[in-house]
């Protein structure tokens, strides 16, 4: 019992280290960027702040996907849509902050509307001049879409490949819609030329550092919330639905509600990631809805290790760092490399980098234990990581399996 609790703390320790690291980075990187002179060895260049800040948003998106894919077996191929919607909500706020500093100098209408000869602001742009309103929309719009989509999909018991396909169709439909000029979101140019956020210049080093810090804190918060969800009774139910959906039904649970909650929370997380991403890259356009983007998120998560909390973060950071490096050296081969990576992960690292690491550590510990003379009081208790690995090795793979 005591050993069990100790090892349970071991698994939690990893989560707290991750949260601590993220909070540390949130404080340290801005300081190293702003306070140190550029010629200092410890100076973090501004381009680096922007780049890593972007990766942190991707990591939050991957974590959001993992909540539904890794823990509930819902392979969403449309999570990019929630990210993009959050991004658009933030973009609309940033657009309205431009005020009369646009090319056409209209104090109310963004440039693209003036260009389209629109006379007044469409109703759905109302309120976006207020930051608090935009923040609410960043969470509400993706959350509501996920809720409505999930309500119908899960209630009609669409699962597996069919569900993946309709999530993909959802993001594709949004892609087409946002491409249209008359939708009122800037058509294929999207929203850009941002000036201020909360009164601060978005281009300024200090502002960028602050947004970087906000991204790191948001990710830390995402890790904490995911951890809290997974460790609750509901979290166990989520995994139960993943492993044996109809079993949960016959003991009285409603798997459609279980999935709906996770899907909605996940979409809100993705929306927040998108909202933090947009001011850092300075643009949001319909390309963010591209099905390929959503598929990339799946690859990050798979590479890092789905069904773990740290895995998707590691995966998003690794793959995106690799992408930045690769597109610098051999830009035309990046997609092949990405495809190859996915295949290799599926074949050789079914539990991703983190799963592999845990497996190694478990084997290492076993060897060490075997080498030592058997000591009293340490029965062959399995660590949570080991248990996770064993579960995957013995058929607890996060695919929904038909009962009976």
């Amino acid at each position, binding site marked *: 019992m005591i050993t*069990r609790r100790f090892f349970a703390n071991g698994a939690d320790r990893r989560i707290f280290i991750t949260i601590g690291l993220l909070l540390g980075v949130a404080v340290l990187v801005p300081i190293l960027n702003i306070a140190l002179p550029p010629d200092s060895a410890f100076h973090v260049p501004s381009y680096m702040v922007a780049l890593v800040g972007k990766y942190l948003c991707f990591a939050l998106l991957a974590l959001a996907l993992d909540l539904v894919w890794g823990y509930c077996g819902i392979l969403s191929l449309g999570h990019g849509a929630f990210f993009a919607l959050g991004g658009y909500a933030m973009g609309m706020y940033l657009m309205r902050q431009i005020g009369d500093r646009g090319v056409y100098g209209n104090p109310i209408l963004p440039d693209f509307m003036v260009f389209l000869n629109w006379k007044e602001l469409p109703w759905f742009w109302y309120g976006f001049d207020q930051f608090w309103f935009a923040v609410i929309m960043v969470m509400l719009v993706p959350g509501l879409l996920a809720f409505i989509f999930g309500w119908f999909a899960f209630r009609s018991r669409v699962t597996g490949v069919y569900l993946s396909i309709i999530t993909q169709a959802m993001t594709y439909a949004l892609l087409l819609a946002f491409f249209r000029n008359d939708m009122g979101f800037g058509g294929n140019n999207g929203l850009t030329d941002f000036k201020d956020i909360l009164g601060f210049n978005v281009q300024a080093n200090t502002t960028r550092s602050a947004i970087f810090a906000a991204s790191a804190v948001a990710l830390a918060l995402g890790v904490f919330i995911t951890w809290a*969800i997974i460790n*609750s*009774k*509901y979290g*166990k*139910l989520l*995994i*139960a639905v993943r*492993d*044996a959906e*109809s*079993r*949960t*039904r*016959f*003991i*009285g*649970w*409603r798997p459609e*509600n*279980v999935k709906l*909650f996770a899907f909605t929370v996940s979409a809100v997380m993705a929306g927040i990631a998108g909202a933090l991403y947009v001011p850092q890259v300075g643009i949001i356009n319909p390309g963010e809805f591209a099905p390929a983007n959503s598929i990339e998120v799946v690859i990050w998560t798979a590479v890092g290790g789905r069904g773990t909390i740290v895995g998707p973060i590691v995966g998003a950071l690794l793959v995106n760092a690799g992408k930045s490096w690769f597109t610098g050296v051999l830009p035309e081969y990046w997609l092949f490399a990405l495809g190859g990576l996915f295949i290799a992960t599926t074949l050789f690292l079914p539990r991703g980098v983190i799963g592999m690491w845990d497996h190694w550590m478990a084997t290492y510990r076993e060897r060490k234990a075997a080498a030592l003379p058997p000591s009293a009081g340490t029965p062959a*208790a399995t660590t949570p990581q080991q*248990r*996770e690995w*064993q*579960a995957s090795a*013995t*058929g*607890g793979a996060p695919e929904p399996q038909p*009962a*009976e």
Partner: protein
Amino acid sequence: MSKSGTILYLDGVSVSFDGFRAINNLSLVLDRGEMRAIIGPNGAGKTTMMDIVTGKTKPDSGEVYFNGEIDLTRHDEADIAMMGIGRKFQKPTVFESHTVEDNLMLSLKGPRSIFPALFHRKTADEVRRIDDILGIIRLGDKRHMLGANLSHGQKQWLEIGMLLAQDPKLLLVDEPVAGMTDAETEETARLLKDIAKTHSVIVVEHDMHFVRELGVKVTCLHEGSVLSEGTLDFVSADDRVVEVYLGR
């Protein structure tokens, strides 16, 4: 026939899959507190009968009543489970990535909505209940083991334990001893007889030794309807039963 006093009442139930009549004008009545064994060759419709009772399959025609008053055809799986009908699947189905204890915890009777589950803390009462059930299903020493690592027989028991945790009025148990050793089979018969003291039970089983061990009324299904009903000796002496088991 009167429904009062019955825990389960099926009358004239039929269901077809793509024109194939899996259940054909089936009538079956289980009294409150009764344990019944159901036998029948492969494809007789035993599992399908359970699908109908638990709301997985909707019958094309016929009446299905629980407790003499509730029309089960109007409810879905989760509702029916909450009313007090527990079911063990033919293929043992437990939550493989959870420990034995967590499997039981998720099955314990209680609210079934999301937010209570999110903020749930294990109560002393629940811990006691889980300990009781672990004792009954004899998995006390395996409580921290993952479902995936249990033997086939242990999974069957865990699943029965999950039924008990729900505290149902009626248990439907599909082939509980398939793949068990003789010793395990005997143990299971004892376990089910214990359970039957306080619950109504339907057991589907091919193993005749086991059915004899249970020592209860037997119903033989064939091609979706009742072929013969009575004591095991009576049923196994029935020419028609012999015929369907031996083939024509």
